């Protein structure tokens, strides 16, 4: 018995470049980056002060249920928004609600959610500052005055798995689930694990989500101190590249077995063909120069999908703009594709690095690009870096070689993920 085909019946995305996949693709194709000055705090005197912030961030527009706003964080708002968008696009809720009453519970038990989450942030910890000021270094006083100074729901607001819990409650999803807190690869792993759950028959439908809002003072400062942030512009694979830039947002895909989609006559956007994942084990920030982990992840993904390198129509690279990552990624792509390099692009230059959401939002945008039969250009690319020689990159849009995209994603702890998707 062969594993069921995994199809995509809905997508959702939000980031600085737009609040739905087509709008984000349009921004990218316009050649204008949505990265700009940070507005969430006064960055006068800051060594790095640019990011891809969601313009006019309005919690009510993202999550209509206002009661929820007190219980969740900014990162949860964007995650819930993207998940809801993908679920709405898939139309499965209307189908479920029209089922005979005794079929609804089994349907919910067979519907899961897998989320890649950034985990903790620093801003939530500052909620203790008023208490610390009141206690003035006196720990017993800190304990006594706790309830008068800190929101009783503080711990719940801080849960890294809030999007999972609240998506479940909102849509009554009761099946297989996970919250993956694996730095940048979390969102891509959510897609891979959702695909595997469907193949293994653990569920018939799974919404995969990735979300993160890393643009906060202490996070920006740390990334700057460890040398990962660019001064002004994210220029992947470029000789003038000097680092990455944060973005914020979320991406989501509604994945189903082909049978689940067929049963309700759902329109299918595309298919998840395979995934691969490998780690390098060199420490939190270390990356091997030869791209070893990425080479193995791509190899596993191709093998998993039963595809050859020649089948890949375009590569959406991690392309985060840091010299070390870009050069090792280029090395990996040379190893895999040699002289038969498909068109390579990347999207972070246009909306920043969404960390846990990066790989999944880029998968969503890749599907939109394949549908439009275009490999968007990297508009900030002026001069290919010597270390990235051999890549087929361009500042201009080009046609893809086929309707299959290889989407790459890399994270802290030397983690590397590769995902193969196609349009219907």
């Amino acid at each position, binding site marked *: 018995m062969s594993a069921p085909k995994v199809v995509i019946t809905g997508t959702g995305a939000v980031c600085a470049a737009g609040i739905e996949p087509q709008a984000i693709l349009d921004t990218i194709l316009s050649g204008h980056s949505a990265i700009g000055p940070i507005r969430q705090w006064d*960055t006068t005197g800051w060594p790095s002060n640019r990011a891809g912030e969601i313009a006019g961030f309005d919690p009510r527009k993202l999550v209509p249920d206002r009661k929820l706003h007190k*219980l969740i964080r900014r990162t949860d708002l964007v995650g819930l928004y993207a998940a809801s968008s993908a679920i709405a696009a898939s139309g499965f809720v209307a189908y479920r609600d029209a089922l005979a009453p005794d079929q609804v519970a089994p349907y919910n*038990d067979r519907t*899961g959610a897998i989320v890649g989450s*950034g*985990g*903790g942030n620093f*801003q939530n*910890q*500052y909620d*203790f*500052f*008023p208490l*610390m*000021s009141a206690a003035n270094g006196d*720990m*017993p*006083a800190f*304990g*006594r005055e*706790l*309830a008068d100074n*800190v929101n009783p729901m*503080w*711990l719940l607001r*801080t*849960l*890294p*798995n*809030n999007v*999972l*819990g609240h998506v*479940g*409650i909102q849509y*009554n*999803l*009761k099946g297989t*689930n*996970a*919250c*993956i*807190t*694996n*730095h940048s690869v979390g969102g891509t792993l959510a897609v891979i*694990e959702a695909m595997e759950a469907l193949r293994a028959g653990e569920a018939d439908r799974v919404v995969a989500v990735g979300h993160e809002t890393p643009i906060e*003072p*202490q996070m920006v*400062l740390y990334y700057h*101190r*460890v040398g990962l942030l660019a001064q002004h512009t994210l220029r992947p694979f470029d000789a003038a590249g000097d680092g990455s830039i944060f973005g914020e947002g979320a991406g989501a895909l509604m994945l189903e077995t082909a049978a689940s989609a067929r049963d309700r006559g759902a329109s299918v956007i595309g298919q998840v063909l395979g995934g691969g*994942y*490998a*780690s390098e*084990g060199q420490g*939190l920030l270390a990356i091997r120069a030869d791209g070893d982990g990425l080479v193995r992840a791509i190899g596993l993904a191709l093998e998993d999908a039963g595809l050859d390198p020649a089948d890949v129509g375009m590569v959406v690279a991690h392309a985060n703009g840091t010299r070390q990552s870009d050069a090792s990624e280029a090395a990996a792509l040379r190893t895999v594709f040699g002289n038969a390099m498909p068109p390579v692009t990347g999207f972070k230059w246009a909306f920043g690095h969404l960390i846990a959401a990066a790989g999944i939002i880029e998968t969503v945008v890749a599907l939109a690009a394949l549908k439009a039969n275009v490999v968007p250009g990297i508009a900030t690319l002026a001069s290919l870096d010597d270390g990235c020689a051999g890549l087929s990159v361009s500042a201009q849009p080009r046609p893809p070689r086929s309707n299959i995209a290889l989407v790459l994603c890399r*994270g*802290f*702890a*030397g*983690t590397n993920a590769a995902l193969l998707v196609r349009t219907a």
Partner: protein
Amino acid sequence: MTSQRRVAVTGVGLVTPVGNDVATTWDALLAGRSGGAPITLFDASGFSTHIAAEVKGFRPTLVDDRKLLKFANRSHRFALEAAEQAMRDAGIRPTAEDAARWGCAVGTGMMTAEYDDLAQTHAHCGMSGELDPVGLLDDGPANDPLVFCRGQAAEGLALLTRRFGIHGYATSVHTACASGGQAFGTALKLIRRGRVDRVLAGGFDSMISPIGISGFCLLSALSADNSTPQRASRPFDATRNGFLLGEGAGFVVLEEWEMARARGARIYAELAGDGNSLSSYRITDSPPDGDGPIQAMHQALGDAGATPADIDYINAHGTSTPMNDRSESAAIRAVFGADVARVAVSSTKSTMGHLIAAAGAVEGVVCALAIARGEIPINANYRDPDPDCDLNLVVDAPRRQRVRMTMSNSFGFGGSNSCIVMRHPEEVDGRDGAGAAR
């Protein structure tokens, strides 16, 4: 699915509030010796709860790599030590040749900032009650890369994969109190899929800090029996009034069954089944009728090819909160039917307290030990029966019996439910843990 790869538990490691290794912890679990005591890690006298189950007298002994430990917070140190114990116990480690066939799956804690770092930042640029971002630019902790690394969600994974040279699938999961169980479930699937042959799996956590205790005190989740810390955790007892916060780590080495047998590994148990559901009820509660946990338990049994009649021991989630224990009892009754009178149940949180993200992993190790040793640890502190929790609880003395199969439940804030089923090696291939034919 006859060709499905099986998974063997071949090494175990524990750092818990009742022992910094497996043997010490096991003795305490059989005796029901509680790890509860007044908090010593900071002056908790002002909090509504000032007791916890701390790991005691801990110092990394097996892992002495000072460069690595510099990047490790308290919970990472527990993890490194317990993982090292498990690797040594299994008698196998990744080599350059097979590193890519090793995976790592861990349940990690919530990654809150260290209190001392936060207090420094507060004193420097937060005295007004709000952060002054400009002040952050010359704040100590906010410019210290070590503080950054120790606080990253992926740091535990980074330290473990580096320490042991693991180059395959490596992942951290966080579903609150279900994290450890979900890590075991993930590891099981990785080996079944054939992506890796061996996985270092576990969980680690430490929330016994002013911030961690605050979070739970604010929710009134902790027992406030401050004068009787050793009796504070009494799962399924009618007078239970909240959980006892613990800390620590539990790790296992998992191997594809045939490979483990081929190298003559000592097999504790088969990791046989995983169940995984969402309650989708409320963020903090399970539904009173056990909906959610019921599906996870059914799935785990089905996944293991087992029925309730095969299970001899349930290591309950059993947090000692009024709601959880009632809901879990209802779920066990619903799943086990008439077998509920036969199947032995205990919550080892009665002695160790609640290890949060590490709980499911530590309790998974407990199940592997129960099978391997033919001993069932007790549900300590049980005195007053609760009619809503009429289970066959192991009280007073541990049971010494053959344990064919075990079930371990872990339910988390957010509604994730994990259920892990293990099987005695003889029930798999007729050979005991050492490989001798029966």
